């Protein structure tokens, strides 16, 4: 096999890396649109979401073809299974970047309470998590993937704090409600991006170490409940 097969795998990885860059850029642009109060940039992000969708379909199609024609096993199978889920997570991040842009377009300006909410710190953590998740995937590096997983807790905490602060801001002045709701949604979306970055990081463990760390999988299946279709030698 198999140079042709390896070429197909390489093509898959290249497409997925392109998808990574595109989605990373979409998030950067969406955040820049907010920070610079730039509606044109927000519109550009929304418009470019189509491109992300096209890449999503391309990666899916390559995976489908490789599985159908080559019946991959072991590390190749893990790579392809993970490519499908990573691709799906990236596509969702792309959608969320577009949603951030859409929510910003509802208000078009940073509100007076902008410095009080957790947007800046959440944006910083989220972009860092996504970049690290992408780097971990490209370099097959579980250590970087671990950093992503560790950041999730802080992001969740900031989101909860932001929720409380936003409610206070709304209570203080009902004129704040529209902008506060928009940013509440935006921050919630940043937290979702953190979840997707975490999913990608977990896939890196699966690809590199054949270790499934989602939902305490190893503990669930191998300690307490042996998989009944897997007989031990």
């Amino acid at each position, binding site marked *: 096999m*198999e140079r042709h097969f390896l070429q197909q795998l390489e093509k898959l990885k290249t497409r997925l890396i392109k998808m990574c860059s595109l989605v990373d850029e979409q998030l950067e642009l969406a955040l820049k649109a907010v920070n610079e109060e730039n509606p044109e940039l927000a519109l550009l992000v929304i418009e470019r979401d189509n491109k992300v969708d096209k890449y999503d379909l391309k990666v899916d199609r390559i995976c489908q073809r490789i599985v159908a024609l080559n*019946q*991959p*096993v072991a590390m190749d*199978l893990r790579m392809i299974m993970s490519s499908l889920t990573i691709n799906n997570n990236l596509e969702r991040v792309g959608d969320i970047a577009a949603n951030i842009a859409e929510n910003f377009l509802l208000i078009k300006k940073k509100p007076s309470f902008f410095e009080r909410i957790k947007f800046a710190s959440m944006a910083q953590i989220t972009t860092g998590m996504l970049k690290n998740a992408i780097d971990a995937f490209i370099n097959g590096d579980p250590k970087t993937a671990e950093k992503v997983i560790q950041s999730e807790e802080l992001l969740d905490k900031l989101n909860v704090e932001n929720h409380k602060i936003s409610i206070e801001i709304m209570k203080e002045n009902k004129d704040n409600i529209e902008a506060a709701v928009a940013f509440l949604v935006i921050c919630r979306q940043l937290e979702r991006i953190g979840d997707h970055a975490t999913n990608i990081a977990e896939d890196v463990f699966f690809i590199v170490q054949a270790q499934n760390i989602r939902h305490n999988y190893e503990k669930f299946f191998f300690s307490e409940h042996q998989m009944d279709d*897997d*007989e*031990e*030698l």
Partner: protein
Amino acid sequence: MKEIKISISNLSLNYTGKPALKNISLNIPAKRVTAFIGPSGCGKSTFLRTLNRMNDLLDGVSVSGKVLIDGIDIYDKNIDVVNLRKRIGMVFQKSNLFPKSVFDNLVFGARLNGIKKEEELMEIAERTSKQAAIWDEIKDRLDENALNLSMGQQQRLCIARALAVEPDIILMDEPASALDPISTGKIEDLIYELKNEFTILIVTHNMQQAARVSDFTAFLYMGELVEYDRTSRIFTNPSSRQTEDYITGRFG
């Protein structure tokens, strides 16, 4: 692990002084399918033939180590090799039917065992060809020359013939490599059915076939057992880099 049917320890085989199997140890479970994979010349078929002592028929072969079937050393000098081979059916890459009728082929072993009554022979022919999922296709062709059957039917007839002497182990050496996908599918379905009653060992070059039909897989390379594990593990996360390279086609 389930009940162990075959226990092999430190099995080595030299052929005209050259090592063909090197110090192989493994336990094969009863009523399960165990597949042997590896590149050509790695010793898969030689290994299979040590289990029914077919290598004894070759000059210049020396075997050391132990092969216990149901706890009995089959290389013990008191073992009756003919009896041993009755317990271990074998199916080869190409069907090796006799140029006789379908019926005569089916009951060949039974007749050798001294069964003469037509009624009893008919019962054996029907039972074994039903077990081999070929009865419906041959029941009206029992007097026809067996070599007129299709290749896939001939191979299933070979399996039926092997079952007629009531073995408890079936060795299959590339049983479907000469067959089309439909006939291959029938053989694979049959293997799946037969494992309820027999311990099956299969040598195959087709890794997808090994993955589909077997419960356990052993990877051999240059006469050595590199890895032996659950098939689901071998094909998703093998322990050995050599196994991984082989099954993903990166070998050599």
